[in-house]
């Protein structure tokens, strides 16, 4: 039986509700960059800030927070970088609209739990929120390492240690090959024998979905196993949000995997209207900063969703020779219009 899912659409007929996003002549946005075990998130952190400054945003947290307060918007409750751009957008009557962007970055992952908390808070507080980073096989955003896995010999001595899926997958595939076992079969066998000891690190994970939409990929099993076994993991379905209109974009690999659960399992966040943007294929770290900035540009330019998708696709070029990166990059899943 196929897993339930919403794929989103490439041909949306409507636009973000700019009148609501721009209420009080200000739009509040949060842009978050997730974590990568190889440090690929670090250049994105820098490019994003440079891109915002180049667009006229200024790093003036006092002014940014004062602008939010003046518009009656909730104040951020957690430490972050706040930037302000005055008059960067126009409302329906041509009046100037200011934008406040809160930047959240996982950095070296050591404070991933705190960044995840700030991201959750921003999802409730801001009009527009975007995440750029690993999709974590459809499970949700992530702001830190996920695990350490120790491989033990028969005497119980640690012979190898791993902290990244692909690294572990390669080692297990190599080890299982002479016995005709796949990496996944080797993983199952060694964990059962307690010769692969996994210590999960889930404080930076926000779980949207625990269905495994990518069962053909080794990392998905490890990811889902570790999250399912963790009683303290933070689930998006358990979060409380007030009733208001929001736009969220998840800019990781194949994040349309998130749609079903965000729509079906969290009635509170959907009550005020929630427009979702996600990806329908694999994307690359090198395009994440441009994608997040494209969203800021599109919101400020009052793009309808068709143009916003085109803007996002333009910075995530399709590769017709590669099945994983063919076609438009992003899709939308829109809240029902009144």
């Amino acid at each position, binding site marked *: 039986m196929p897993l339930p899912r919403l794929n989103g659409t490439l041909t949306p007929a409507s636009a973000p509700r700019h009148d609501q996003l721009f209420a009080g002549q200000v739009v509040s946005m949060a842009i978050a960059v997730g974590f990568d075990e190889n440090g690929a998130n670090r250049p994105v952190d820098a490019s994003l800030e440079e891109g915002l400054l180049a667009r006229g945003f200024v790093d003036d947290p006092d002014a940014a927070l004062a602008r939010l307060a003046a518009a009656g918007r909730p104040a951020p409750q957690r430490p972050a970088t706040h930037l302000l751009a005055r008059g960067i957008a126009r409302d329906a009557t041509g009046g100037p609209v200011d934008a406040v962007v809160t930047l959240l970055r996982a950095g070296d992952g050591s404070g991933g739990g705190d960044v995840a908390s700030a991201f959750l808070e921003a999802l409730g507080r801001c009009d527009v929120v975007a995440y750029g980073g690993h999709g974590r096989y459809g499970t949700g955003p992530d702001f830190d390492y996920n695990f350490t896995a120790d491989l033990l010999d028969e005497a119980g001595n640690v012979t190898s240690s791993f902290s990244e899926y692909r690294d572990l997958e390669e080692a297990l595939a190599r080890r299982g090959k002479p016995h005709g076992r796949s990496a996944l079969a080797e993983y199952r066998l060694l964990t059962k024998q307690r010769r692969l000891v996994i210590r999960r690190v889930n404080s930076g994970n926000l779980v949207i979905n625990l269905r495994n939409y990518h069962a053909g990929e080794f990392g998905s099993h490890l990811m889902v196993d570790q999250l399912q076994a963790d009683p303290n993991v933070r689930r998006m379905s358990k979060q409380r949000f007030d009733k208001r209109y929001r736009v969220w974009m998840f800019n990781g690999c194949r994040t349309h995997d998130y749609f079903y659960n965000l729509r079906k399992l969290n009635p509170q966040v959907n009550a005020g209207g929630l427009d979702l943007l996600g990806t329908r294929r*694999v994307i690359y770290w090198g395009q994440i900063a441009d994608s997040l900035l494209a969203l800021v540009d599109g919101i400020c330019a009052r793009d309808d969703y068709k143009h916003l998708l085109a803007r996002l696709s333009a910075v995530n070029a399709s*590769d017709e020779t590669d099945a994983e990166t063919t076609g438009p990059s992003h899709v939308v899943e829109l809240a029902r219009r009144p």
Partner: protein
Amino acid sequence: MPKHLDDATFLARLAAFSQKPRPAEALALAGLGDERALPALVAAMTDTMEGSDVVRYREAVRALASTPLLQRWLAGDLDARRVAAKALTAHDASHVPLIARALRDEDDMVRAIARRSLRAWSASPALHDLFREALANSDPRVRLLAAEGLGKLGGPADVAALNDALAAETDDAARDRIAWAVEKLETDD
């Protein structure tokens, strides 16, 4: 045995790969044995987020980046050192001295990349020695990883060094991990 292309053809292929990386071409470029391909191969490896291509880019980087090559690049200019650091792995004992060197690099990005490599390793005497040495590194995150590694692959002979490190440690997270390593090795004894 590496194949040889004329320079213009090689550079054209490299430019095309940099523009649009593909795993098969990565392996083919690595097979040519020309180290000028290393930055593009490393970029493809780190830029790829999910999917089966990642493993093949890693294979390509490993095929080209021999230990002597990495040693030379780590003695080179900043760009070369940053590229070479990304190809280091503590699963290869011959890389361990290079990681030790990169941990002392003057550039913080090179040091950060080298630090990350201490999170994944295969046990070797060289690595054990590196963990011992790294207990005194100036970065508490390195000291934490050194303590964690030593707690996993060390033995009773390491307890005194860990206790000295514990007495000197000023960082809470590193101190916790050193204490864990001491306790573990004493329990194992």
